[in-house]
């Protein structure tokens, strides 16, 4: 019973840490990017400042915004928060992992996306409609690709429970699985698309031709925008942590001792920073692609996912 309590407490703590750390990752990403592009870099804490500022701002709503428009940020944030709560960040065997497995995780993202798109349509602007339409198209292609990658892993681990899967891979030690390689690539491409980074989308622009995600949330401001921005950062972090957990789980805590947990934190931080650097490199060398080349990009991801699954079935069993 006591152990149960500690587990739950740890789980809550991890979730809080997760959402607290998300802006930090974004900040770090921004900073590295600026360095790489020879620009003056903002502080790593900049995202926190932005969020705080936004929450303080007075709320301004478009005149025909409906109740849905005002509910959406909370739904989005709630869904993302849940997603964050079930991903093992520093330790496995945490009870919250049982709330939802990886398929439900995808479901949470879908929920968030669904309502964001509705919010985009609510005001009745052309941009909102455009954003919603394009976002749903991208999602429709990204989701099966992601699931194919995830299925490969969960078939290997005989589970869709994230924590259990991570632990399995951890215990299996270093196995050179071609399927994992393909799955990693697929998952990375999907992650790029889903967290609206270059080349699929460009978060740092408000140009009609390049916006996807931004177009939907154009009309938001104040605390609503804060919640959505935060949710976006959490989403990016979730994807990164997923990749880390699935493919380089080493260092994650398997028992609830202070030592192990500290080690877990350090390990995950290091891994995330490394991953961020890779992402920045990628974003710097790539250019934003035309909307209708995105399907080919994601189609390639889907193909990789299928390949991963096939190699798993054909070669590894």
């Amino acid at each position, binding site marked *: 019973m006591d152990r149960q309590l500690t587990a739950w407490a740890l789980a809550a703590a991890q979730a809080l840490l997760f959402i607290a750390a998300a802006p930090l990752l974004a900040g770090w990403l921004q900073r590295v990017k600026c360095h790489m592009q020879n620009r003056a870099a903002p502080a790593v804490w900049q995202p926190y400042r932005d969020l705080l500022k936004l*929450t303080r701002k*007075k709320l301004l*709503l*478009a*005149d*025909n*915004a*409906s109740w*849905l428009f005002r509910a959406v940020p*909370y*739904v989005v944030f*709630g869904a993302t*928060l*849940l997603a964050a709560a079930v991903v093992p960040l520093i330790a496995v065997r945490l009870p919250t992992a*049982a*709330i939802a*497995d990886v*398929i*439900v995780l995808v*479901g*949470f993202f*879908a*929920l968030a996306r*669904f309502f964001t798109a*509705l919010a985009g*349509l*609510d*005001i*009745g*602007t*052309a941009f909102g*409609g455009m954003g*919603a*339409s394009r976002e*749903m*198209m991208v999602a*429709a292609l990204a*989701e*099966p690709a992601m*699931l*194919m990658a995830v*299925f490969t892993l*969960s*078939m290997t681990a*005989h*589970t*869709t*429970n994230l924590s259990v899967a991570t632990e399995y891979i951890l215990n299996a030690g270093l196995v050179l699985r071609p399927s994992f390689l393909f799955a990693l690539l697929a998952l990375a491409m999907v992650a790029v698309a889903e967290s609206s980074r270059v080349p699929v989308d460009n978060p740092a622009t408000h140009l*009609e031709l390049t916006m996807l995600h931004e177009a939907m949330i*154009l009309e938001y401001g104040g*605390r609503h925008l804060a*919640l959505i921005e935060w949710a976006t950062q959490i989403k990016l972090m979730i994807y990164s942590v997923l990749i880390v957990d699935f493919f380089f789980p080493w260092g994650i805590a398997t028992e609830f001792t202070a030592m192990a947990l500290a080690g877990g934190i350090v390990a995950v931080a290091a891994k995330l920073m490394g991953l961020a650097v890779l992402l920045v490199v990628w974003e710097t060398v790539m250019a934003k692609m035309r*909307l*209708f080349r995105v*399907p080919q990009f994601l189609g390639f991801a*889907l193909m990789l996912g*299928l390949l991963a*699954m096939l190699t798993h*079935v*054909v070669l590894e069993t």
Partner: protein
Amino acid sequence: MSAMTRAPLYLAYVALACTLLSGAVSVLAVRRHPDFLHFGSFFFLFLSGAASIGAGVWALLAGLTVSDRFELGLPWLDWHLRIDPLSGFFLLLLGTLALAISLYGPSYTRQFARGPAAQPLPPLGIFTALFVLGMQMLLLANDALVFMIFWEMMSLAGYFLVVYQHQHTANRQAAFLYLLLAHVGALVILLAFGVLAAFGGGLTFDQMRVAHLSPLWATLAFAFAFIGFGTKAGMVPLHVWLPEAHPVAPSHISALMSGAMIKMGIYGIVRLSYDLIGNVRWEWGMAVLIIGTASSVLGVLYALMQHDMKRLLAYHSIENIGIILMGLGLSMIFLGNGHIMLGTLGLVAALYHTLNHALFKGLLFLGAGAVDYRTHAHDLDQMGGLIHRMPITALFFLVGCVAISALPPFNGFVSEWLTFQTALQAPALHDGVLRTIIPIAAALLALTGALAAACFVKAFGIAFLGKPRSRSVGRAREVPAGMLAGMGLLGTLCLLLGVFPTTMIKLMAPITQLLVRDELPSAAAQGWLWLTPISSDVASYSAPCVLIAIVVVFALGYFFLKRGTAAPRRAYAWDCGFGHLTQRMQYTSTAFSQPIRRVFAGIWKVDEHIETLASKGTIPHVTSLHYSLYTQDWSWLKCYLPIGRLVLAAANRIGFIQTGNIHTYLKFSFVTLIVFLWIVS
């Protein structure tokens, strides 16, 4: 003891009696006394729905199987009736929908009592009753004759309901197509029963159960049953009648058709393949899985191209039938390979999704009916902004949209999740091909889910959000309380079934016990909070936690962010600083689906027409531009049209027999005589 054990059947009889009464009462609903329909008929329908729910739940809870017979029908074949958990489950489904529409109907049908859409009321009541009666009886049927009689009665009553507003050509054509395919399907079903009867030595289901069929004949019987029932269920490529018939019927009837009638096809498939034929083979499962996958993907893709609200919903029925079939197919594959537990899981997933689809599709059709009732608009591109005019309807419709898009924590998600879980157990199979095909099917299921979400973002966003695109929509009002109650009932059930799946799965245990002699002990092993279909290590899902979490987030947001801040200020939309917005600047449904249309080009037969009108003058510039887009169903163009042409061409060819020249006629009989004489001598 007997009274208690037979109670479900008696309750079912009560339901039948109430249905008949509801039909009988509506005979009196002549133009002067419409209330006989609005209150009398629907009141009895309400009772009937309640009674069938009672019967179904009782049969499920007690896991009873009660049979009975009547001195009717053929001299050597009485009417055999029987209620068991399976039919109980479908009775529950049917009763729930009947309940909902009996709440919704009284207000909705007022538009037929007077005004421009006035129609004679008695047919509506009578055939609604016969429609429900047909379904109730075919669920209770325990021999082929009764089953076929009421199966056809259901189809026929449905025809009269589809053609109810017969002054529109569309209704007549749709109704004809519907009845034609229903009739052909029924004949094929008849063949399936014929095979079973030939081996079982009789027409009663009990005789068929004990019949021993060789694999070949069993497969043949299954094929007939699958085709016949699939026609009713609306699986690709036998689906063409569905998107024609459902939109033109009155909306509460569309709800009943899409929610209950096509499920009878699923019932038939389950009943025949699991119960009557028995020992399922995995090859059948392959066929069902492939057809199901095709139905789901094609259904949702075609739905995306629709801009008539009810047509769109109808295509989504095809998609969901596809998902159900995928579950069934997986279940058959696993059963055929001897994995009883996984087969059970697939079956549960399929049946669960059947119930869910009944609920949210019924809800959505009722919502579409509510919009139609106030605005008389079918076309999405004329709607918009209804969330301001009809907030409660919008809320319920939104619930339906979230549920059908398989988003947690609503019910659609649970059943699709179970289907995924089943699919992910593919490694348990020995056949490598199966192990590869099944995950691919799962990926396509994911694609379906994502596309469905896109489609319902479009449906809800275009219809309810933004600004009204036509004047009548701008003037809409909220619908009467009765209609809201009907929708509210279904909406609440959508949420409940999504949040408490373990309870429902426990309730379904007797069905799997009956059909595959197994159930899912592990599903609720961790208590009602945790849904763990296989084991807690493999996969788990806790819908209640999800719901709680979202509520908590709302609460926190209220406390920490909202409280104390001033009320938000209203202003023009920013829209990147572009000027005044008119409703014509909004995305239309056609525009919304354009990217997907480009990505999946070739699935549809798309004809685009752009007519530009250039102005006179030295520098011609375009003054007006008219864009029109038709998307057509390939299966219609490539399959049905040719058949129709073939038949008519044959009919035209054969006209030479009737030349009108008496010499020809005499020669016919002369030659016939000579030939026969030659044969016998």
